């Protein structure tokens, strides 16, 4: 199971910001770096590094760090 800290680290790297900025309640547009290009970078990085694939219907719902963490837990459970 991928830990929350790992996910936050990947998000921080994708946005090129300090991991301290990636709080649970951080959402799209919450920091200037998390714009549409940043969002794309996050999804690409998570899919690449965690070897997962987000279904399109779920991607639409992923608007916060908390949501992303929950989604990855769900996907890993389904694939277990």
């Amino acid at each position, binding site marked *: 199971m991928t830990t929350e800290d790992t996910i936050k680290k990947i998000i921080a790297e994708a946005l*090129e910001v300090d991991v301290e900025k990636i709080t649970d309640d951080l959402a799209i547009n919450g920091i200037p770096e998390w714009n*549409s*290009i940043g969002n794309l970078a996050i999804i690409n990085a998570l899919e690449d590094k965690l070897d997962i694939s987000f279904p*399109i*219907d779920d*991607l639409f719902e992923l608007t916060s760090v908390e949501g992303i963490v929950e989604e990855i837990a769900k996907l890993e459970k389904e694939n277990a």
Partner: protein
Amino acid sequence: MPEHSPILSAIQRHAAETPHAVALISAVKERVTYAALYEKIVQAAAFLQSHGLRKGDRIALSARTELDFIYVYFAAHLLDVVDVVVDANANPKKLAYILDLTKPRLAFGFETEVCVSLKYDQIDYGKRLESADGQSMAADDTADIVFTTGTTGLPKGVMLSHFNIFSSADNINGFIGNTEHEVEVLGLPLCHSFGLGRLRCTLIKGATMVLVGSFANLKLFFNAMDEFHATGFGMVPAVWAYIRKFSGTRISKFAGQLKYIEIGSAAMPIDSKKELCELFPNTRICMHYGLTEASRSAFMEFHENMDRLNTIGKPVSAKVDIRIFDENGRILPDGEQGEICVKGNMVTKSYYRPEENANAFFGDYFRTGDVGYRDTDGNFYLAGRRKELINVGGKKVSPQEVEDAVCSLGVEDCICVGMEDPNGILGEVPKVYIVKNGTDMPFDEIRRKLAPLLEDYKIPAAFDWIDEIPKTSSGKKQRLSLRNP
């Protein structure tokens, strides 16, 4: 009466005739009627006046969705004060250059040491506007100075008059067929030309604009479309790629209510155009071709051009003329390739620095730098670019600026060109070729060190080695020879 500003005159007319019509809905769902909008503009003008601002002075302002930005932007026009709209997230060096050049008296919405900088909540709307007697104001006076990417990397200030910006909005509304019944959701930032242009189109018609300010959170955008029964929106091709990746074809549920979509700022793949036609069979899907100096010069509607989706269309209105010129300034016949040049009511008269006007015009025709031709039916086609700017999702990147930044890290020499975005979102992205043995630094390190020097979208997506940089006999880099190899 703000007779010198046809846009303000239109807003004032709507305030008198349809005072309760909603002009703006903010990101936090605050509704502003036309009566309230005009009142706020007058009050904001009084505030600017209380700071000593008068005709010809300049203010700098930035915003994504703030209502106060709109009040101050038009308040400046009311006083014939010039707006310099900037993106506060731009490269600090570029921003400093713009502010140094234009010397604003006040700045709103961002921090600067060049002049007094105010937050929007510091505006006092309780002041009374004094008559500006003795100051003649005319529609030809400069309303906005808009900065566009120059080939050298230094931005060029484009002066647009009150008449220019009104004419552009009027041309667009005429082509698209907009009415006062429109409700448009704006996902584009207000501080960019496309977003600000859409705002002007909406307000001169007496229609409604919902300010969302970003497409990043599509759920928010779609909710606004649903809640306010949107009839239209504007986007760049990169946004369409983003919408498709993050929401599939979910947006087609709005096909019944969307009367128009305006697209522009970059090329769009033909397959995307066909798909849009299928998803929105009854929507006017209008794509513009233009540039800051000659906003929305040409338009084409997808459904009407299914057999030639690669055209950039025809002049936007009868008040605009487009011709193909050879390099000596002679008009070429149909079918022959040359430089696309534009004359019309929205074309700038001058750059801010007059020396930049050299070679910018053939008579009244502005030289776009793009190569194209016209067919016998009057449709124009792009055939290439004379200028070497890279178009990253609608944002223009000067290759020289990127090369200068790379070389400032100690790299001997390099050449920057556009390549197809491997993610299929942005259209083009910058790629840098570094001359072999020109550095010991790994590409990753160069990329990391560029972060504080360049905006995100200018940082090369790829690096490669090159034996020798292709140059002309006079030593000019031949970037187009390496494009999309």
